[in-house]
């Protein structure tokens, strides 16, 4: 990571101290495929921000960079006040225990029951809990998503919508401060999708979390997000509330609202 020249630092927006994610001038390319080019974003505490972009525009790549699953080529990422490029393994694990990640493909462990799936992050992050406390926590998050009865089922026995809700429960189990949602409603029917969006909203309010929601589903975004960022051509092309963006006349923005 090259340190930015002093001149440039003045152009960096002054961010309020209560921001939980600050991304500045992020670049990422795969071979000659430029995915992110000068992308910047700030997420404040308690805020739900949606990143909207076409398929293949680099939304998943963006959140994988934030959480340290991929390394950006250039730019800086501060997650919960720490520059994630400078963290060693232990510090990275520590910070990851404070965020939740809902994967696009759910990423439930096929070889484990629902209960073991939910206990996995608890056990692996060395969260000190007796097994009774673990059981109680598992049941609490499961009943939050309305699936307490599925605790001993295998992921293969669940429907797509159920799997998404279990994955959401697993995301919530560590009481995260920030949650990343990678296309939470894609591949679900509109009614189930609406249910998931409602859950995201409710969980955010109940546990007072910040959320970064990646999506191209307008209904989901409208229900969940306070602010929308349009990821077009690898950069933050436009941003604002749903109503503001809807009135935007730029053709690249407009096509999402048709």
């Amino acid at each position, binding site marked *: 990571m090259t340190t930015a020249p002093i001149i440039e630092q003045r152009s960096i927006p002054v961010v309020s101290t209560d921001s939980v994610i600050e991304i500045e001038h992020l670049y990422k390319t795969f071979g000659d495929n430029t995915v992110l080019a000068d992308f910047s974003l700030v997420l404040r505490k308690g805020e739900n921000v949606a990143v909207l972009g076409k398929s293949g525009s680099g939304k998943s790549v963006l959140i994988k960079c934030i959480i340290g699953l991929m390394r950006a080529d250039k730019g800086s990422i501060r997650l919960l006040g720490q520059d994630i490029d400078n963290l060693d393994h232990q510090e990275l694990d520590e910070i*990851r225990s404070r965020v939740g990640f809902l*994967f696009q493909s759910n*990423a439930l462990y096929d070889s484990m029951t629902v209960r073991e799936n939910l206990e996995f992050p608890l056990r692996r992050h060395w969260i000190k809990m007796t097994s009774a406390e673990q059981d109680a926590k598992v049941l609490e998050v499961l009943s939050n998503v309305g699936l307490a009865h599925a605790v001993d089922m295998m992921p293969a026995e669940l429907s797509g919508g159920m799997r998404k809700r279990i994955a959401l429960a697993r995301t919530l189990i560590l009481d995260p401060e920030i949650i990343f949602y990678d296309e939470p409603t894609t591949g679900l029917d509109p009614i189930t999708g609406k249910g998931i969006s409602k859950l995201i909203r409710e969980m955010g309010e109940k546990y007072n979390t910040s959320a970064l929601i990646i999506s191209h589903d307008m209904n989901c975004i409208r229900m969940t997000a306070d602010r929308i960022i349009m990821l077009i051509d690898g950069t933050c092309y436009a941003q604002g509330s749903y109503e503001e963006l809807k009135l935007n006349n730029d053709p690249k923005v407009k096509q999402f609202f048709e």
Partner: protein
Amino acid sequence: MALSHTWQQFLDETGDISRFTRRFFLQGFKPRYEIAELLRQCYIIGYKSLPLVGLTGFIMGLVLTMQLRPSLISYGAESELPAMVGIAIVREIGPVITALIFAGKIGSSIGAELGSMKVTEQIDAMEVSGTNPFKYLVVTRVLAATLMLPVLVILGDAISLYGSYLGVNIRGITSFSLFFQQVFDALSFSDFFPALIKSYFFGFAVGIIGCYKGFNSSKGTEGVGRSANSAVVVSSVLIFIIDLLAVQITDILGFN
């Protein structure tokens, strides 16, 4: 042009596998140790392949005995049958056949399992759950394969010799104790020891190739199938290459 491209791919892949192996040795022996997962994998890997190894070993021993008998009779050496079969099984056929069965069964299942974990982001999910997926998934499976294959080879050899004992008794009568006495009289430490050592290398090859192919699976379900398939192909070829090297090395060391 096409040939040079194939060669380049081959060399690229060889380099990648070497790096993967290096990573195994760099990370595998540092804490935190995934003992529970290692034991679970040993159980799964050993237990899953035992019936198949037993069945093929039994048939191998029986068939080999029946095939060898006419030739030995024509040399007037029928009484050498147990010794011949014993040496063939313990030195070569037992380890290689068991390893090939193991590659087909375990190599493909590791390749497919890790491949589908990769494409459905389960490996990423592990990483954000405070777990090093390389240690949790790769190191445990490679170690389990390395440790379990020699055990399977020994069990397979035993079952194979029992098959041979039955084969001898189809056309003649030899008591159980006499048969095994003849086998063990013919075998020495230098028959048994190199075969055992090379089994560890066979197991390691199957484990590391299965994990490499799965861990580097390309997106999509056909990527998973391809991983499983090439895991079997590459590890089977590697078993023969290791066998070839092993015979040279034992020769040089004078284990003959």
